[in-house]
């Protein structure tokens, strides 16, 4: 068991290393001379060279890569060209928006999806099931940013309950911050919930067809006990898998949604930095997102071992 965890952790580190390499190659080496890009095509070559020296671009790639990795390990990420501020500071600031947003969205998704999925499975092929499945088909087809715009239309334009965008910071009060994040969170959550509800429903239905469910009923267990005591835990495996994958979607979704609502979060930072050609910020933000995704998948793997005892044995 420990061996399994250790091996998975090593795989995690290897994946991160590989990801860092690809990000570095993609965003640092391939584009060519970063300082050229920053200054534009017809800038003075002397000025370009000076900037290159200032940014340390004249040193060999491996050295720059190693330096970056070292910096990552203790949050020393260099300075942003566009903001003239340390990248680490910038990122932390933005995280204070994105992380609560992601957590809110994930909670809403889980709550909605699991209840809807279990309910639909228990009422299979009846009105409740058909209704929920129909809604989820719709939910899957709607672009989340369009849903966001519709929400703005309804709650900001028509009803005037909430603002159409912007985030003033947590200093204004937790409730104000919450109000600013609720529409973004809902628009992120609804599409994911639709997908997860279908997965949950089909996972439970799949499990209900298994022989051991028949055995459980033959022992005298009632429908509810069978559902919660036997079916759900087996159904969790595919559900948790999808939730892990969805986290990645959630993070990238924030890139779009933060733009819709003009939220000063990580996603918007990436986007603005691209517009500013501030590649150092882009590089670090992308790395951060990747780290978060990989870590979440690692946690999912750990959860598997807890849920399904067979996995432990397979590994040993």
């Amino acid at each position, binding site marked *: 068991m420990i061996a399994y965890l250790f091996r998975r952790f090593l795989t995690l580190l290897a994946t991160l290393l590989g990801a860092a390499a690809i990000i570095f190659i993609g965003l640092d080496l391939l584009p060519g001379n970063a300082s050229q890009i920053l200054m534009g095509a017809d800038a003075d070559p002397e000025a370009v060279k000076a900037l290159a020296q200032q940014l340390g671009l004249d040193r060999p790639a491996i050295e720059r890569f190693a330096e970056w990795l070292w910096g990552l390990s203790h949050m020393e990420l260099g300075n942003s060209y566009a903001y003239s501020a340390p990248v680490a500071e910038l990122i932390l600031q933005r995280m204070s928006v994105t992380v609560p947003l992601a957590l809110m969205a994930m909670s809403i998704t889980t709550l909605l999806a699991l209840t809807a999925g279990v309910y639909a499975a228990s009422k299979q092929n009846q009105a409740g099931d058909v209704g929920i499945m129909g809604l989820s088909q719709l939910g899957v087809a709607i672009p989340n940013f369009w849903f966001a715009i519709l929400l703005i239309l309804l709650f900001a334009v028509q009803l005037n309950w909430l603002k159409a965008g912007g985030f003033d910071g947590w200093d204004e009060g937790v409730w104000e911050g919450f109000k600013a994040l609720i529409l973004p969170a809902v628009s992120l959550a609804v599409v994911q919930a639709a997908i997860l509800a279908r997965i949950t429903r089909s996972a439970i239905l799949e499990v209900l067809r298994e022989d*051991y469910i028949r055995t*459980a009923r033959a022992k005298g267990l009632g*429908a509810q006990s069978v559902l919660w005591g036997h079916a759900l835990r087996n159904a969790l495996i595919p559900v948790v898998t999808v939730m892990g994958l969805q986290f990645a979607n959630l993070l990238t979704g924030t890139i779009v949604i933060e733009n819709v609502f003009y939220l000063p979060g990580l996603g918007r930072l990436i986007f603005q930095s691209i517009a500013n050609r501030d590649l150092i910020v882009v590089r670090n933000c992308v790395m951060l997102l990747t780290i978060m995704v990989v870590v979440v998948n690692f946690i999912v793997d750990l959860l598997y071992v807890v849920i399904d005892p067979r996995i432990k044995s397979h590994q040993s």
Partner: protein
Amino acid sequence: MSANNISLLRVNNLRVLVPTIAGNLQAVRGIDFNLNAGETLGLMGESGCGKSLTALALMGLLPQGSRASGEIWFQNQNLLQLNESQLCQLRGNRIAMIFQEPMTALNPVHTIGHQVAEPLRIHQQLSKRDALDRTAELLNRVGIDSSRHRIHAYPHQFSGGQRQRIMIAMALACSPDLLIADEPTTALDVTVAHKVLDLLHTLAEQNGMGLILISHDLGVMARHVQRIMVMYGGQIMEEGTTPSVLSRPAHPYTQGLMASRPHWNGQQSTYSSQSNSRPRLKNIPGQVPALHQMPLGCPFADRCTFAEYDCHRSLAPIRSLDQTHLMRCRKKV
């Protein structure tokens, strides 16, 4: 082998309707039988003859969409008229069932201790500790060694034969009055199979429990049951004590089954140089009619060498050949 003459189970005119593309069709078409306490009854037939559905109907576990009608009298109650919660009180408690595939019949995420203890905790309200103690005892009885330790093991850590024993322990946990075993050994190796069946037999004897053993295997029937019912096309074709049915089969279908067993007469060899000298294996020509193509009369009529005109038009009435041997056929014996 003492069997009291206390009637345990009386089934009258049991019919089971199953949904098919061609509408709801009868897969079990009006069967009657009785079982006394402590008796072992074998229900024999090919795939599709309705024996599994009969078993599921007894438990009230028919798949969604199927319906049973008729009467199933068990301990003064008609099981077909009970609601789900009443049936739940009986299942695993007074009536138990074990199934064909031991590899998939246990929940992989719970320990076997937990699963065997479950009926004890539901029906006898035992505390967790007491239930686990009793579970260890039960597992010992069915031949799972060092059961104290193994209670915390998971199903995937056991072989098929062991899992079937665990299933038996689970089914017998509350000492039911009736155990239905649906092809319990079909998925097991021959040696393991007979050990498991002997175990079932012994336990049934010890507990005075009625046992219905379903199988398509003549060998299993011969060794382990006292009475045999032969099913075909949703009907019971012949019924009687094992020696009677197997040595003096009366119904043409049973006769066909007995005749199609391979015979070893000592002189035959597959490596015989004259391959023509080996007699061919006999079989019953034709096929079991599909559900939606069931003839009006006897379902076996099309394949029967003795079929008369009436056989195609109506089912024969049940005839007694002697006190215990019955058959549903017009053929002169």
